[in-house]
């Protein structure tokens, strides 16, 4: 009885392993869903965007993004000042 249970458990394990392996192969294959559903994925592939970081410090180009925001803020301030001068 115990031997049969053990065999069933191993069978479950191997089936699970095949499923997990299949999932890994599917995601690693570069497949993207057709139409709008896969648009973001295709964009990530085209621009090599890593969507997996859990927190900001894991994003490779975070410093660049932060610096970019500072630049945007400065530009916005200058734009606002120029507009108020015009008025």
């Amino acid at each position: 009885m115990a031997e049969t249970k053990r065999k069933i458990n191993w069978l479950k394990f191997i089936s699970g392993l095949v499923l997990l392996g299949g999932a890994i192969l599917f995601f690693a294959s570069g497949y993207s869903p057709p139409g709008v559903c896969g648009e973001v994925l295709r964009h990530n592939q085209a621009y090599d965007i890593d969507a997996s970081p859990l927190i900001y410090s894991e994003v490779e180009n975070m410093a660049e993004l932060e610096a970019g925001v500072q630049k945007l803020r400065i530009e916005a301030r200058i734009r606002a000042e120029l507009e108020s001068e015009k008025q």
Partner: protein
Amino acid sequence: MSNSISSLWKDEDWWAIWFGFIIIIGALAGFLPKIPKVGKWSDNPIDAFLVIKDGVTTGNLIVPLLLLMVGLAILTSVGVAVMKKEKVGKYLAGFLVIFILSCIAYWVANQTNIKYWGLSYAMWALLIGLLISNTIGTPGWLKAGAKTELFIKTGLVLLGAEILFSKIVSLGIPGLMVAWIVTPIVVIFMYIFAMRYLKMKNKHLAIIIASATSVCGVSAAIAAAAASCAKKEDLTLGVGMTLIFTVLMMFFMPLFIQFIGMNDILGAAWMGGTIDSTGAVVAAGSMLGPDAEKVAAVVKMIQNVLIGFLAFFVALYWVTCVDRDPNCKPNAMEIWYRFPKFVLGFLGASLLFSFVVVPAMHGNFELVENKYLNPITEVFRSWFFCLAFMAIGLESNFKELAERMEGGKPMILYVVGQTFNLILTLFVAWLAFMVLFPNAI
């Protein structure tokens, strides 16, 4: 008093602080080298274990990874031996296998196409662990190495070093409004909704889902789980839900924003405040254009800083309201005694880097990041989290997970909470970026 002093070497929370600060001080003093991590790969799986510079292989990562495994085994086994919770030999055997399994999880997660999907090491580690525990079962010797609490808390103390308070002003008042006003409201709303309306029995799961939905997904879920002393199965469910919904939101939110013709900056702030993980926020923001990508990422970054406050207040609420004796009001000593100390380690590391290390480097955060965080503390933190998720998977079983679903209440909580989050964040982002500060960006 002797009890509280002995907790310094008997309590896992204190050991997490010791380990975290040994690593932080080692990094700051220059004693620690660059810590290895499994590399990225595209077509050839072996590339993950090679050092490749400009297309030329200059070495391999096998030996450094083995040294890291031995180093972590020695470091953590000191704590295990002193706490006397496990025989060191048994712990070491289990730890070594868990480390190897964690390498496999990292190896899968680091495939470039898998990274594009936003599927992180946390998910693969959980799946591998769950597969083993729910089929052949996790043997006792392997469970002995699964020191989930110790791994999570050490990882959280190290995470504190990455959470810098100076970041909160990166986008001025509009950024603060989106990230810091909405988030606490959503956490409180979701928790009250879970308790009063859904009548969820599992308070731990409710706070984990509320934190993951409103702050920053997996990292917030880990912090809330550790601060509320939740069971591993609660964290598994919370993390599973947030991982699935993050991918869905990353796929569909930018398309919806484009479809209705919403302003890119407003859309970016909206996604930054609502999509759970930072990587998915960057990917979704990038769909709207380079400026939107920057704004979305920075809004999320400001929100990330809330993790420390979240952990502190959840821990305080649990000690003073949830886990207390209903017949007596806890005094300050009692609160201190039961307060999860690793939260103080987390806040200490955050304060150290925010107000000592970065100012000592003349405010040059990039230098701090390149010298201490990226090569050392962040890598250690990721390893501890990966080990923790593997350990959680190895100790969770589907039967208990199913029991915790309470007829789908956690799912209802997530959907209702996220809907509320989406509406409130959109309103506050519109108010901040379009009405009150239209020239902010």
